[in-house]
């Protein structure tokens, strides 16, 4: 039924693919997280000149498929002689840079909206209390808004990271050999679907559950105050 020798032979390739997948995920989500917190604050600003550009950015990025964005950067920009001659080409030449750049912009757009939504959902009482203490706007963000909003955004953010992990498969279209690419090569060379796509499905499954578990742990610590208490039940 299952030809274990094919799987055993392909394991080193899957391991290398897994490293590529995880590295892509970590660099894209890491940069995305750092960028999206200030962008989310800008997104909920009352000034049009501040929230407008951020809105446009998330609107465009969320309105186009990741695959198209990657092709536009990887193949599209390479069409222009001027770009190929320019300094930017040293970076754009690399599929790693293109994938990191596009994945980061994409996840930043979604994460910004997730955080902005959580910021908007802050109970007004918390804000009033902070103002009555005489806190400045900056202090309110630092002490009240961001800590509580980022915590409340955790479940959704966890979803976004899992979705990004699945989206890394798209990197295979620009010559990066991540686990989906490895699976396709195994499939092609042995004509065995179970030993290729079956294995990669199990890997994604384990990764997803590992990540979901990790976020559950963080949520349990960070959102302790939102859990129903024993006295609340009684």
């Amino acid at each position, binding site marked *: 039924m299952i030809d274990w020798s094919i799987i055993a032979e392909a394991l080193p390739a899957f391991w290398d693919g897994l490293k590529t997948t995880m590295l892509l995920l970590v660099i894209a989500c890491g940069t995305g997280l750092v960028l999206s917190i200030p962008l989310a604050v800008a997104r909920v600003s009352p000034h049009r000149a501040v929230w407008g550009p951020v809105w446009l950015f998330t609107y465009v990025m969320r309105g186009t498929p990741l695959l198209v964005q990657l092709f536009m950067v990887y193949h599209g920009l*390479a069409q222009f002689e001027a770009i190929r001659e320019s300094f930017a080409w040293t970076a754009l*030449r690399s*599929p790693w840079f293109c994938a990191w750049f596009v994945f980061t912009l994409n996840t930043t757009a979604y994460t910004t909206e997730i955080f902005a939504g959580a910021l908007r959902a802050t109970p007004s009482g918390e804000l009033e209390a902070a103002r009555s203490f005489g806190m400045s706007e900056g202090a309110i963000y630092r002490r009240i808004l961001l800590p509580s909003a980022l915590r409340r955004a955790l479940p959704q953010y966890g979803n976004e990271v899992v979705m990004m992990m699945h989206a890394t498969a798209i990197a295979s279209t620009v*010559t990066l050999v991540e686990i989906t690419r490895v699976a396709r*090569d195994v499939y*092609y*060379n042995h004509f065995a*679907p179970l030993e290729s796509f079956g294995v990669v499905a199990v890997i994604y499954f384990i990764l997803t559950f590992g990540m979901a578990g990790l976020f559950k742990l963080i949520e349990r610590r960070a959102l302790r105050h939102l859990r129903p208490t024993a006295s609340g039940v009684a």
Partner: protein
Amino acid sequence: MIRSLAGALALAIVAATPVYAQNQKLRVGVEGNYPPFSMIAPDGKLSGFDIDIANAVCAAMKADCTLVQQEFDGIIPALNAKKFDMIVASLTITEERKKAVDFSDPYYDVPSRFVAKAGAFTEATPASLKGKKITVLRNSPRAKYVQERFKESEVLLVAKETEVYLELAAGRGDIAFGSSVVSGEAFLKKPEGKGFAQVGPTVILDTTAGAGVGIALRKGEDDLRTKINAALKEIRANGTYKSLADKYFDFDIAPKS
């Protein structure tokens, strides 16, 4: 009167049925990213030498064929999964592929060649390409050839034959190794290929007899294979093959045998 009419009608249906039954229904897997053998127009219409050969073979076999477009990567597994009954997609006959599928007699054979920026290389030898990046189609006999012989070069494997030249033009590879025909049609003869040229002589990967590109079918379907081979012989003999080949090529691509 009515009864005899009904009788005539019934007779007509009975008489007509065997004619339909003779026309075998076949699905043919084709690729679409291998000009001028296989191309997809933006409106999804397929054309090219492979497509014409598929249609001509089907006509000679008196079969009703439906073309199914499938990416090159999964084309052999899809055949074995019965998504279609035969593959006409410039599949080179190789020992590895013969383990998974059967092949018809070859229907064309063209050599491979190296292409790079004009003047960048004078020859394509393992020594001259040391440390250079060679772009080549993934999972192809050419990729195997390059990986086995150019051990000190980097190999950039891409998913489609047309991307081999895109990556070369973009500067992501130093030299491309591709089909001598596709590299001309898809690249050198186009504006994108300006300033690029062939490096060294053309390369014949497999010099054994019966080498070339064949129609693939599932193992053990000998009836269909006999029919396909007969159809190939027929179109070679009656001039159909030559007239189709002349549409695309100004040189002989027929397999030598």
